[in-house]
């Protein structure tokens, strides 16, 4: 979408063009500091009152070859006058340190005709004739693609100030952007002071010089000058990514033990816990492997300290057996799965929502467990607190699904204010009533209280074998049936206590979009645009996938068509449309099972977050197809009961 522009004469001495929103990217070889500059600029935007979403562009390798398509590293910053909930569509302005990395972004459909590219022209005079030719060919190509390229001698400018301009140019860019968008340069300097707070004053001063130089350079040499009207926010805010929110949520939930093993993209949760967790009285255990991580966590839980383990797809696979034990032996646990592309090693740094079935059904045997999905960065924080309480109340594992999009997206969110009731109470060491068995199941709900080591009279042996209510190993038919029933009932009991999800838009209509997880922002934004264009479309976004929130069938029946949109595979090829063997998305299959309604699925697995433009396109095409077949309302597929 093109920015909504209009001329403005307020503010700076030179006239600035007012824009409601901008998407900018800084793209470079890895190690050139683009992400640092982008995060700092994002913080400047947030501090200036803008809504912001930043997302890192991360190559799969630590040191990919320089000047390569696969090596594109950097950051996207989307900011504007309103709250920003996703990465948006194509970029408006791109700063690139070489031309080849731009192809990595062209492959990701990040640009459109009209995208303005500020490019360092140093390659034009490179010693290598090959590089010189590559650069010139690219410029011709970019022009054909409709990009507006402006050469900007970034390194040359920085070389006036520092010995190694390759390392300093990111701060120069920070200053430049600050001027282009009419932000306060002092804010940018403040960010640099924070970034380099552990470095010498000399280093900080040098970076301040670079920022000022970038700022002045833009003022004197660049025609671009925008202004973004700022929101007035009264509530205090914090800026963080989803993994930081998870880490803080863990701390605020009173969970005292996190055991994990490094795995992308979950790892950074451990980075945020690394120092901070100790300061709030928690323990981060870096286990020897994924299995040991969940085993350690379950040991801590057994001893009375409900623990957490954080992983991504391949790690979830390894934890499966212990997860089954947690279900069988009714041990609370919070397991966070920061999803990435799969199966197998898949796309380690990229986003997918493909672990839904693995989370629900991955455990051999019937292993009912609670599975929740965070839709926003803010929810990453609060969901951990809810999950610990649910794990303890329902005496079993609770899985939280997030993904690489939430993990790396950075956004200002309302500042949480830690409360006493969020935090786990101290361990109960009072005597256990000897008349109460270790699994004293409530016949209605399957819920039972749990003895903790140290409680005299509560001694029992936890086992993964089939067992009776008094924790004795039992292989007889009735005991096994009973245990299964009690564990299953807990999910039903939870479902009864959940509220039906809220429909976004009209409560009935032609098309209902259903989603879960990090796609919320893009779907909502697209929905707003589609409704403005007159489409009869609403959306539903689930936070609980097991047990599923109640009342979904009733909602589905009020729409002609139900369509899931997500980042998980489903057959989309034209031949699949009417093929009874078509494989729908996991989510659509789950909804069909839950509601007995027909649910169509649209998905793509590009490793990219969904953009609102793509979702809008899907909605438009859905209507085109439905209307070409017949009048709306004729195909009451949503109400079909099989």
């Amino acid at each position, binding site marked *: 979408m093109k920015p909504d522009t209009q001329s403005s004469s307020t503010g700076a001495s030179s006239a600035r063009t007012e824009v409601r929103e901008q998407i900018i990217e800084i793209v470079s070889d890895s190690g050139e500091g683009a992400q640092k500059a982008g995060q700092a600029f994002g*913080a400047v935007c947030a*501090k200036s009152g803008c809504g912001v979403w930043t997302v890192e562009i991360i190559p799969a390798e630590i040191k990919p070859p320089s000047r390569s398509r696969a090596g594109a590293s950097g950051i996207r910053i989307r900011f504007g006058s309103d709250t920003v909930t996703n990465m948006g569509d194509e970029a408006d302005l791109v700063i690139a340190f070489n031309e080849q990395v731009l192809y990595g972004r062209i492959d990701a459909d990040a640009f459109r005709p009209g995208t303005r590219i500020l490019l360092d022209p140093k390659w034009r005079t490179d010693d290598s004739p090959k590089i010189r030719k590559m650069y010139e060919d690219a410029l011709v190509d970019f022009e054909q693609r409709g990009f507006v390229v402006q050469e900007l001698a970034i390194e040359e400018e920085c070389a006036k100030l520092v010995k190694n301009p390759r390392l300093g140019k990111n701060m120069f860019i920070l200053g430049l952007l600050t001027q282009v968008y009419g932000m306060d340069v002092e804010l940018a300097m403040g960010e640099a002071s924070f970034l380099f707070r552990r470095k010498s004053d000399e280093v900080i001063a040098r970076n301040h010089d670079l920022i000022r130089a970038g700022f002045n350079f833009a003022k004197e040499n660049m025609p671009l000058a925008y202004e973004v009207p700022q929101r007035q926010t009264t509530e205090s*805010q*914090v*800026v963080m990514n989803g993994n930081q929110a998870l880490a*803080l949520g863990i*701390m605020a939930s*009173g969970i*005292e*033990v996190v*055991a994990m093993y490094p795995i992308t993209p979950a790892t950074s949760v451990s980075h945020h816990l690394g120092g*901070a967790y*100790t*300061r*709030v*009285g*928690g*323990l981060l*255990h870096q*286990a*020897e*492997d994924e*299995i*040991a991580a969940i*085993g*350690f*966590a*379950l*040991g*801590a*839980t*057994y*001893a*009375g*300290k409900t*623990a957490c383990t954080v992983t991504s797809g391949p790690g979830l696979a390894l934890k499966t*057996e*212990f997860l089954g*034990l947690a279900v069988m032996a009714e041990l609370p646990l919070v397991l966070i799965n920061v999803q990435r592309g799969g199966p197998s090693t898949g796309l380690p740094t990229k986003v997918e929502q493909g672990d839904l079935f693995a989370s629900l059904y991955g455990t051999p045997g019937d292993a009912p467990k609670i599975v929740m999905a965070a839709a926003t960065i803010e929810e990453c924080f609060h969901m951990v607190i809810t999950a610990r309480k649910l794990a303890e109340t329902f005496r079993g594992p609770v899985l939280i699904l997030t993904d690489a999009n939430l993990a790396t997206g950075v956004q200002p969110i309302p*500042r*949480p*204010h*830690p*409360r*006493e009731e969020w*935090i786990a109470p101290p361990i109960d060491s009072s005597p256990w009533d000897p008349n109460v068995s270790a699994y004293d199941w409530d016949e209605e709900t399957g819920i039972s209280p749990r003895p903790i*080591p*140290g*409680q*005299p*009279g*509560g*001694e029992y*042996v*936890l*086992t*993964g*074998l089939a067992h009776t209510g008094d924790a*004795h*190993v039992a292989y007889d038919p009735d005991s096994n049936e009973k245990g299964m029933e009690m564990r299953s009932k807990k999910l039903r009991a939870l479902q009864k206590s959940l509220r039906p999800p809220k429909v976004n838009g009209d409560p009935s209509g032609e098309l209902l979009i259903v989603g879960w997880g990090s796609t919320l922002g893009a779907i909502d934004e697209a929905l707003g645009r589609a409704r403005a264009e007159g489409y009869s479309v609403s959306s539903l976004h689930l936070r609980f996938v097991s047990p599923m929130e109640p009342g979904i069938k009733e909602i589905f029946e009020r729409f002609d068509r139900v369509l899931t949109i997500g980042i998980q595979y489903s057959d989309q090829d034209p031949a699949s449309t009417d093929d009874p063997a078509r494989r729908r998305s996991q989510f659509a299959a789950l909804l069909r099972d839950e509601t007995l309604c027909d649910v169509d699925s649209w998905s793509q697995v590009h490793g990219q977050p969904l953009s609102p433009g793509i979702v809008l396109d899907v909605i438009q095409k859905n209507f085109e197809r439905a209307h070409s077949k017949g009048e709306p309302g004729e195909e009451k597929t949503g109400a079909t009961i099989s």
Partner: protein
Amino acid sequence: MGMFGTENDWELDPPPRYFSLEDYEGGAARWCPGCGDFGVLTAVQRICRDEQLEPEQIVAVSGIGCSSRFPHYMDTYGFHGLHGRPLPVACGIKSRRPDLKVWVATGDGDCCSIGAGHWIHAIRYNMDITVMLFDNNVYGLTKNQTSPTSPQGMKTNTHPRGAWLPPLNPLRAVLGFTNCSFVAQVVDWNPALLYETLRAAYHHRGTSFVRILQRCPAFSGQVFEHLQHDPASLLLLQHEDGMQLDPKVAKLFPNSTTHDPSDMKAAREIADSDGEGKVPVGVLYRDPNSAVYDDFTNLGMEMGLDEKIKALDTELDRFAI
């Protein structure tokens, strides 16, 4: 003041609770008749009684296998978990509960095969737990498959013509793991040796690793027969810093030597000679000064609610704009 207001020092001061062996006895053990596990169970129960450990403070942790039924036969808390995984669980239990006494029962398949990865790291963590390796040289519960410690040539269902490879030496392995702090070996059929060694293990702060040569009358009865019938095939290691037997019991061992358990080099030499003649029993290695992971895992446990909320606010402020 004593009885009737008199001052005296002869009045009994009985502990509020006294525990007898029965207080540690769970369900009737269902191992095969003649199984070596019975003796180990009794030894542990006697130690608990003699140390007057509160049953609710004890957690018996195990994996899967015959010997891993151990927790079910203790009337304490127990965690009968997954095959190969008792050590991560035991470490997790201990991580925030220094007050609990953790006993781990694991077998040669459980510890040295499927759980070998955890074995290396648990020894390095050196948390304050007691690990008993019930080594019967065979997979018993699944009925007679070759284990990593099966002697070369031993006939099993998976190697009917005899195990192909030489066996893994757990003592040699564990003495090679960084930060190992207590290594001992015993046989199941000598109750006094078993008791004294396990008791020394219990008192050691750190991960005490005790390999128990344990008879399996069903599948590997023959492997320890010569040791049982010929005490001269055993080499008793004694030292005031390790384990010392009552001289009356020690007399049963024709071969006995004084071995300083702080001497790693000597311990490794003794471990290397295992299986080549004299089988060492007693404490091979002990270092009370090795780093214990508990010193790190216990940090911050004393933090109060108000203090915690204040600290949380500080952490959130770091992200404030």
